[in-house]
């Protein structure tokens, strides 16, 4: 098989503990800290960075007997929809080598789809688990904000991101979620809600009487090769006794703009730590501090990272905060409210995960706004802090994988797992 470039670092290791993941191979996205194993975030800035500690999720999977097989490729610092912004080159889609694997957790999704690992961990700030899982034809779960500890995750936009599982089946992803879920004293935004749920037991395809809402805003303007498989999946749910309902959530039209303003603003602050002194590549000590920082950051960051830090800096700069950041926060509250209201009438919300088929390699390079707009169906979930799952629909083998997304109320992962497992059967 052709090398699809799913790993940045491969690891020879043996799991030696007994537990829920005994004998299972797991790949870990390269922005999750692994003690003694370099963790690059797909960036030249951290190409030699070796964390002195393990992330909580890494502790947990090791304790459950997992065999860690490597650190996976990703868009630089999680900023991208294709894994093409990685300093280590793009990950190729395992189903079609002319297409991208999606991003930013492209390596994690491709490693599972190609069989290089049974499971993987990805991270999702605005769709970074769901997009590549959909593009690679595998299952991905973005947990409720707070369900999984972020301790040891290299921050991009803290208020939005979560670590989550990727697997070939809904049951598999749920099994990995069982291992990593739960509160952590080292992450004060984590919660112990939901810790007693047995997610893997919920993959029973039982959707009799479940109400599924389809928001008009998320099925508008969708590629015809995507909408066909989506409709077939909804028919399948109906045959199994689910009730399909059309709904509207007008706030979602503003989600992409609000998401990018918040994510870029947080990124501009979080990535300020890469100064070439404590981390990253130093670029000479000749000038003053400002000159040294500015040179290190010019050399260490790629274009998309620079673009987002600069736009975030602009959005937070004097005179613009109210115009951009404050309004984006208002949209976030509006989206949260609309979802809350929707979940009084429906159990889950369904849509295509991505509005398009996997991009051709190189397609989005010149037009960042076009790439941002392709996140329309995934970013609302992060703004509202909700859980979501993507499950592959039956797709046309000549075209490429299509993912179906289900969104639930906070800590209602069980319902998503039920709905998802009904689609895959």
């Amino acid at each position, binding site marked *: 098989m052709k090398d699809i470039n799913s790993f940045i670092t491969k690891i020879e290791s043996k799991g030696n503990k007994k537990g829920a993941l005994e004998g299972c191979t797991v790949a870990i996205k390269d922005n999750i800290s692994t003690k003694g194993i370099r963790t690059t975030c797909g960036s030249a800035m951290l190409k*030699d*960075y*070796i964390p*002195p*500690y393990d992330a909580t999720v890494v502790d947990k999977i090791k304790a459950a007997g997992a065999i860690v097989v490597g650190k996976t490729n990703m868009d630089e610092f999680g900023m991208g929809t294709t894994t093409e912004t990685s300093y280590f080159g793009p990950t190729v889609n395992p189903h079609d080598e002319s297409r991208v694997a999606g991003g930013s957790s492209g390596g994690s999704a491709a490693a599972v789809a190609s069989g290089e690992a049974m499971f993987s961990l990805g991270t999702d700030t605005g769709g970074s688990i769901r997009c590549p899982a959909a593009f690679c034809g595998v299952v991905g779960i973005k947990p409720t904000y707070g369900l999984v500890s972020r301790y040891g995750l290299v921050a991009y936009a803290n208020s939005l991101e979560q670590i989550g599982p990727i697997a070939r089946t809904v049951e598999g992803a749920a099994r990995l979620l069982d291992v990593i879920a739960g509160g952590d*004293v080292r992450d*004060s*935004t984590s919660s112990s809600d939901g810790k007693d749920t047995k997610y893997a037991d919920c993959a029973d395809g039982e959707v009799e009487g479940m109400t599924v809402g389809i928001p008009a805003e998320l099925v508008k303007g969708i590629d015809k090769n995507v909408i066909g498989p989506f409709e077939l999946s909804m028919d399948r749910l109906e045959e199994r006794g689910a009730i399909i309902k059309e709904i509207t959530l007008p706030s979602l*039209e*503003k989600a992409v*703009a*609000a998401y*990018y*303003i918040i994510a870029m603003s947080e990124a*501009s602050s979080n990535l*300020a730590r890469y*100064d*070439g*002194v*404590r*981390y990253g590549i*130093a670029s000479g*000590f*000749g*000038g*003053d*501090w*400002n*000159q*040294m*920082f*500015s*040179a290190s*950051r*010019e050399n260490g*960051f790629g*274009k998309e990272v*620079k*673009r987002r*830090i*600069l*736009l975030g*800096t*602009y959005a937070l*700069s004097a005179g*613009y905060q109210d*115009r*951009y950041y404050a*309004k*984006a*926060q*208002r*949209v976030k*509250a*509006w989206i949260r*409210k609309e979802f809350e209201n929707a979940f009084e009438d429906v159990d889950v919300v369904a849509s295509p995960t991505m509005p398009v088929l996997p991009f051709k390699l190189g397609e989005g390079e010149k037009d*960042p*706004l076009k790439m*941002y707009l392709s996140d329309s169906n995934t970013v609302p979930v992060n703004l509202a802090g909700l859980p979501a799952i993507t499950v592959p629909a039956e797709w046309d083998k000549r075209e490429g994988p299509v993912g179906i997304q289900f969104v639930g109320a906070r800590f209602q992962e069980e319902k998503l797992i039920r709905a998802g497992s009904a689609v895959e059967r």
Partner: protein
Amino acid sequence: MSERSVVDVETVQHISELAKINLEGEEVEMFTKQFRQIINYFEILDEVPEIEIRLDVKNVLRDDGEGESLLRGEVFQNVDENTKEDYFKGPKVR
């Protein structure tokens, strides 16, 4: 409606100074063009209904106490070219 923002080369140079990222001339031009387009798109936030922002948050505190900390050597392993006798090394303060 707020006044439309105009992003020009000077704006991009100014933000690059604030963000402490040097840019090459070509990059400044490319970013100027792209930022105009992106910021123009952000104007769709001008029409948002008044929403009451309810913050359902509470402080998460723990008892202060001694715990394990990282070993100095492990922390400095990432900056080996930039250290001097267990200190981070930086440029001279003039």
